C-alpha cells in the first residue's frame, strides 16, 4: 500500500506545476480574460499537446500515452490551480468519453486527433458546452445518452458566463452519432477529472488566504494571528485535503478498482465542488475589501469554482447518488 505518487507520477506533477505556473502566470490569465474572455492561447495549447498531455489518458493504440486517471488528475489539479484558460479539460473529457463509451470505429476516427490535440474534443450538455468553439469532436451528454455532434452542421453560440477563463457555449443542435458503450464508466471518469480541477482551485484559494494572512497587519498584528482568521484557514485545510483524498482515491479506483468508481467519483465530485466554492468564498473574507476587487485574482477562482462545480451534476445530485450506492432504500 502506498497512497502517494510513484516516481513517474511525481515527475509528471513537477513538470505540470512548472508548466502551468510559467505559461499561465496570473497576469497572463488576466490578459487573456480581459482581451479575449473565454478564449485561450493556441500556441500554449500546441506546446501542451506536444508534451503528450492532450492524450495522456488515451490508449497507446490510439496515439495517446496510455496512462491512467491518476496521471490525468495530476494535470487537471495543476491546471486548476493556475485557473488556466485552456481547452485541456474539455479535450480530456471527450477522450475519456470515447475511450470508455465509444465504438472501435469512433475511437479510431477521433481519438488520434484528441491525443495530439490537433483535432480537439469537447464535451457539454444541451445547455452548456466547454471550449467547443473550434473543436473537431464535440460530444453532448443528456438524459438520452451521449452523442458525437458534427462540427460542420452544429454551431455554438457563445455564452457570457461569469467565469471568463474558459469558453462556454450553447449548441444549435444536439443530434449526432450515439456513443453505445459504458457511459457510466465515461462520465464517472469525467467527474473525477473535474473534481481534480476543483481541488486545485481550492488549494490555490487557500494558499492565497494563508499568504495574505501572514503579510496583512491590522491592529498591530498579522491578521493570521487572530483565531477568526487562523481557524478559518484551518477549516480551509480540511476542505482541501478531504477533496484531494477523495479525488485521488477515485482516480485510483478508476484505474485499479472500477467497481468502486461510481461511488468514488460522486464522493469526489461533490466534495471537491463544495470545497472549491467554500474555500474561495472564505479566502475572499480573509482578504477583505481587496479580495472583492477585479484587480485581485481571487474572483477568477471563485467564478471558475462555481462554474466547474456545476459540471456533470450538482453536489446534491452526487450526494443523492452516494446515498443510493451505500444502501439507503429508495
Amino acid at each position, binding site marked *: 500500500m502506498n497512497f502517494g505518487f510513484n516516481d513517474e507520477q511525481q515527475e509528471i506533477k513537477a513538470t505540470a506545476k512548472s508548466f502551468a505556473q510559467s505559461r499561465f502566470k496570473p497576469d497572463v490569465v488576466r490578459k487573456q480574460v480581459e482581451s479575449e474572455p473565454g478564449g485561450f492561447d493556441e500556441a500554449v495549447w500546441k506546446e501542451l499537446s506536444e508534451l503528450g498531455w492532450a492524450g495522456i489518458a488515451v490508449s497507446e493504440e490510439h496515439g495517446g500515452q496510455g496512462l491512467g486517471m491518476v496521471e490525468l488528475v495530476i494535470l487537471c489539479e495543476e491546471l486548476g490551480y493556475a485557473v488556466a484558460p485552456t481547452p485541456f479539460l474539455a479535450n480530456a473529457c471527450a477522450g475519456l468519453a470515447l475511450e470508455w463509451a465509444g465504438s472501435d470505429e469512433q475511437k479510431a476516427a477521433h481519438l488520434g486527433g484528441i491525443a495530439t490535440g490537433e483535432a480537439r474534443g469537447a464535451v457539454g450538455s444541451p445547455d452548456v458546452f466547454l471550449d467547443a468553439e473550434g473543436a473537431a469532436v464535440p460530444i453532448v451528454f443528456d438524459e438520452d445518452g451521449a452523442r458525437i455532434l458534427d462540427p460542420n452542421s452544429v454551431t455554438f453560440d457563445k455564452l457570457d458566463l461569469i467565469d471568463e477563463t474558459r469558453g462556454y457555449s450553447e449548441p444549435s443542435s444536439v443530434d449526432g452519432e450515439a456513443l453505445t458503450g459504458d457511459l457510466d464508466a465515461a462520465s464517472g471518469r469525467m467527474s473525477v477529472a473535474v473534481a481534480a480541477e476543483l481541488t486545485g482551485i481550492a488549494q490555490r484559494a487557500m494558499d492565497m488566504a494563508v499568504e495574505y494572512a501572514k503579510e496583512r497587519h491590522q491592529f498591530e498584528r498579522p491578521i493570521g494571528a487572530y483565531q*477568526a482568521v487562523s481557524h478559518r484557514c484551518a477549516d480551509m485545510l480540511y476542505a482541501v485535503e478531504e477533496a484531494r483524498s477523495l479525488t485521488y482515491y477515485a482516480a485510483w479506483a478508476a484505474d485499479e478498482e472500477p467497481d468502486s468508481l461510481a461511488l468514488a467519483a460522486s464522493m469526489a465530485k461533490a466534495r471537491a465542488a463544495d470545497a472549491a466554492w467554500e474555500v474561495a468564498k472564505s479566502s475572499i*473574507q480573509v482578504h*477583505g*475589501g481587496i479580495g*472583492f*476587487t477585479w484587480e485581485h485574482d481571487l474572483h477568477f477562482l471563485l467564478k471558475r469554482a*462555481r462554474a466547474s462545480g456545476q459540471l456533470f451534476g450538482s453536489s446534491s445530485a452526487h450526494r443523492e447518488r452516494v446515498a443510493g450506492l451505500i444502501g439507503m432504500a429508495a
Partner: protein
Amino acid sequence: MDLTLTADEEAFRDEVRTWLADNNPGPEPDGDDSAKFEFQRTWQRTMHDAGWAGVAWPKEYGGRGASLLEQTIFYAEMARAKVPRPANILGLVMGGPVVMAHGDESQKERFLEPILSAEEIWCQGFSEPESGSDLASLKTKAVKVEGGWEVTGQKVWTTLGHIAKWCMLVARSDFDAPKHKGLTYFICDMEQDGIEVRPLVQITGEAEFNEVFFEGAFVPDENVMGGVGNGWMVAITTLMNERAGLGASAAVGLQNDLENLIELINERGLGSDPILRQKIAALKMGTEALSLGAMRSLSQQIKTGIPGPEGSVAKLQWGSINQEMTELATEILGPAALGKDSDWGYKMLRSRANSIEGGTSEVLKNIIAERVLGLPKLR
C-alpha cells in the same frame, strides 16, 4: 407590548405610503451609471420638495424632524415601495448629521441645504489600503499651512468619489500624538487639482467605489469639523449613524427578494422539494427575526434614548441571510444563474461583500462580544 401602530403612527405611515405611491419614479434606467445617478438626483429633489429627503433631520435644518419610529416607518415604506435610493445618501445619513452634531453655525449654514437638495454630493474618505478595519492606523497626512491644511495620501472604497463635491475626510494631523489622538476630520472640496479619483472595479465588473489620491490637496481651516485632533471621535459617531435603523428596511428588502425566490421556485415546480422547503423556511425565519429585532431595539431606544449595538447585530444577520438567499437562488437556477446578465447571479456575487463592507463580520463580532457581552478585549 403592542406591535400595532397607534392612530398617529398609522396616519403617518399612510401619508408616506400614499406619497410614495403617487411619486414613485419607477425602476432606475438601465445603461450608464451617470444616467442612473441623475435619475436618483431628480428623485431626491422630488423627495426634498415634499420635505421627505431630510426625514430624520430637525425642522430647523430643513428636515421633517420625524421621530425615530417615524423614520423607521419611512425607510421601511421606501423599501416596500421599491423606490430608488436618494442620490446623496451619504450626505443625508452621515454628512448632515455630523455637521449638525459637530459643526459651527457657519458650517451648518454652508453645508446642510445643498445636501438635502442633492446639489452637492458627499462622499466618505475614511478607509485606506492599509487601514480597513483598523481605522486608528490611518496614514493620510494633513500638514498645517497658511490658512488651512495640505492633504496627501490615498483613500479607498469611496462611493461617488467621482461625482462628489465634498469628502468627509479623516487624516492624520499630528504624527506624534498617540494613534487615536492625531486624527482630524475635514470637509474636503473634491473639485480641485491635487485630487485624483480612479474607479475601483469589483468582482461584479461594475465600479461602485473609487480610489481617491490626495496630492497636496488644500482644505481651509473653516472646513475642519469638530476641532483639530478630534477626528476619531467625530468619525466614530458618524459610523454609528451608518448602521443605526438599518434592520427594518433591510428586512423589507430581504422579504421582497424572498417572495421573488418563492415565486421562482413555484414556477419551476420545485415548491414541494423538502430540502428547498427547509431552506426557504429558515430564510423566512431569519428575515422575520431581523425585522422583529429591529422593532425591539427601536422600542428600547425610544424608551431609554440610548441607541444599542443592535445595528451591528442586524448588519451581521442581514449579510448572512442575503448571502444564503442569493446562493440558494443561483443553485436553483443552475447554469442560467452563471450568465453575466443574471440578476440573481449578480446579487450572489455582490453579496460576497456583505460580510466585509461597513464593518467586517469579524469586527462586528468583536464589537458584540466586547460591548454587548462585556467580554475582555484581546490585547
